[in-house]
């Protein structure tokens, strides 16, 4: 990354904590824990011990039992395993599934794949704030409903769903509840031992761990199981074959421990930064905050303005690294499906910018973002056709 870059794209990935990098490096160094943890010799057992230590750290972060955690390559794989695996395990009982169109593609595409395989999927639309109406969910549950999947924190808007209540509704009918918690694990408090959640997907790189390692939580209760979607060795309770990447798992465990220790400070820091950013741009004419302002993870601020084009706004923002709501490089020119599901017009969805920040973000970073955003909007509006400036 350029030294001058101001990185405000933490929802895409977070910088690795130096303590995580050190822990990983110790595995990768000569004499480090490189051995296959499935091997029964002394070196393999040393690696296995590190893997289990990391699993315990992650379990501590989640308030879960370590044997409930399956290592995967990340949240996308966890989502696929949870959804396809649970649907397959319960197929003899019914083939009705429920999710939302505002889920991450790893979830929506998994459900679409199941639809093509004969499953009946109900897509529950959010309200204008991005929230799921629990009554609506309750009304859509059927005798043959087997799985509900709703993410905890939306990756584009930061909107927080009430997964406690959703889980309660599902548990009352013995329906499995999966949540994609890629954006919330390590950032929001979770205590899975007291929450009605059956399946939870996570990835380490969203909380200052390495990319390429994640986990799936599978509650230890009757009727809650998944079928494997890959086949090979018997690793991870025969649910996820493949040699475990020890250095990445150690990194994930270290990141989990740090996140647990620093969560309260991180949350307060994120809230302070979000408030500073919003106060700095809220008077831009026509600006809209996308998603709920009450039920939102404070590390994400997603805003739209009429009259500007998203890709140009992104270039005008440089050196700030944020995310755009427009699929700028696609031939379709399609705007964010999440924001359109919230009722935003194509133009507003396309002008959306997602700022996301966290532990290492400084107030100066936010001030640069404020200055660049205001300049970019002013610049683009000054050259826009007068009747499409929209403000």
């Amino acid at each position: 990354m350029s030294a001058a870059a101001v990185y405000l794209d933490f929802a895409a990935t977070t910088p690795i904590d130096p303590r995580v990098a050190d822990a990983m490096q110790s595995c990768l160094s000569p004499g480090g824990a490189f051995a296959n943890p499935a091997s029964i010799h002394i070196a393999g057992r040393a690696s296995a011990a590190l893997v289990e230590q990391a699993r315990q750290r992650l379990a501590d972060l989640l308030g879960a039992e370590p044997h409930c955690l399956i290592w995967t390559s990340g949240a996308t794989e966890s989502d696929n395993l949870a959804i396809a695996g649970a649907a397959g395990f319960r197929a003899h009982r019914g083939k009705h599934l429920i999710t939302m169109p505002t889920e991450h593609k790893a979830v929506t595409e998994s459900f679409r794949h199941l639809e093509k395989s004969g499953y009946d999927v109900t897509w529950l639309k959010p309200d204008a704030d991005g929230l799921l109406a629990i009554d609506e969910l309750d009304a859509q549950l059927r005798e043959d409903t087997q799985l509900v999947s709703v993410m905890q924190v939306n990756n584009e808007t930061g909107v927080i769903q009430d997964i406690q209540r959703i889980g309660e509704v599902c548990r009352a009918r013995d329906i499995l509840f999966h949540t994609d918690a890629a954006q919330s694990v390590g950032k929001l408090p979770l205590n899975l031992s007291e929450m009605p959640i059956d399946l939870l997907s996570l990835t380490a790189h969203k909380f200052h761990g390495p990319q390429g390692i994640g986990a799936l939580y599978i509650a230890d209760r009757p009727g809650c199981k998944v079928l494997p979607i890959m086949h090979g060795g018997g690793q991870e309770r025969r649910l996820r074959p493949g040699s475990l990447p020890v250095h990445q798992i150690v990194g994930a465990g270290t990141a989990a421990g740090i996140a647990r220790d620093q969560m309260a400070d991180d949350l307060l820091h994120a809230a302070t930064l979000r408030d500073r950013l919003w106060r700095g741009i809220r008077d831009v004419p026509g600006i809209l905050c996308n998603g709920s302002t009450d039920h939102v993870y404070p590390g994400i601020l997603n805003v739209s303005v009429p009259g500007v084009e998203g890709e140009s706004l992104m270039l005008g923002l440089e050196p700030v690294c944020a995310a755009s709501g427009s699929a700028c490089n696609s031939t379709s020119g399609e705007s964010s499906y999440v924001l359109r599901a919230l009722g935003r017009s194509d133009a507003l969805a396309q002008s959306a910018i997602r700022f996301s920040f966290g532990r290492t973000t400084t107030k100066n970073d936010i001030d640069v973002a404020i200055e660049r955003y205001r300049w970019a909007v002013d610049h683009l509006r000054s050259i826009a056709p007068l009747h499409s400036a929209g403000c």
Partner: protein
Amino acid sequence: MIATAAYNEAVRRHFADPRHAGDLPADHELTLVADVSESAEGAHIVMSAGIRGDTIAGMAFRVRGCPHLIAALELACRKLTEQPVASLENFDSANITEELSVPVEKAGRILLLEDALAMLWARYAGAAD
């Protein structure tokens, strides 16, 4: 969400300082205006040409579009100013596409520039009739 595409220096320069962005002064013998948009591309162009005799005396544009389109409009205005009006009809955007290293998936947006120039020429031809 997709990050910013790569832009060459010419795109960055014209994006940051589009000297022909805005409106033409009302002192030309003839002012032609083209208004084209493509909702699927999220782009909208208003392009103006001030004509003196058979020459394009000045050009200006307003645009809502991507950086490549903004830069393409600026570059086209620079190339066409002080050229014969007939240049509007024969303008080849291939040179601009090459100069700005426009990626192939953006070709549709650059075609909007050609549409605008064709509309200006049609308006000129109509005025001449």
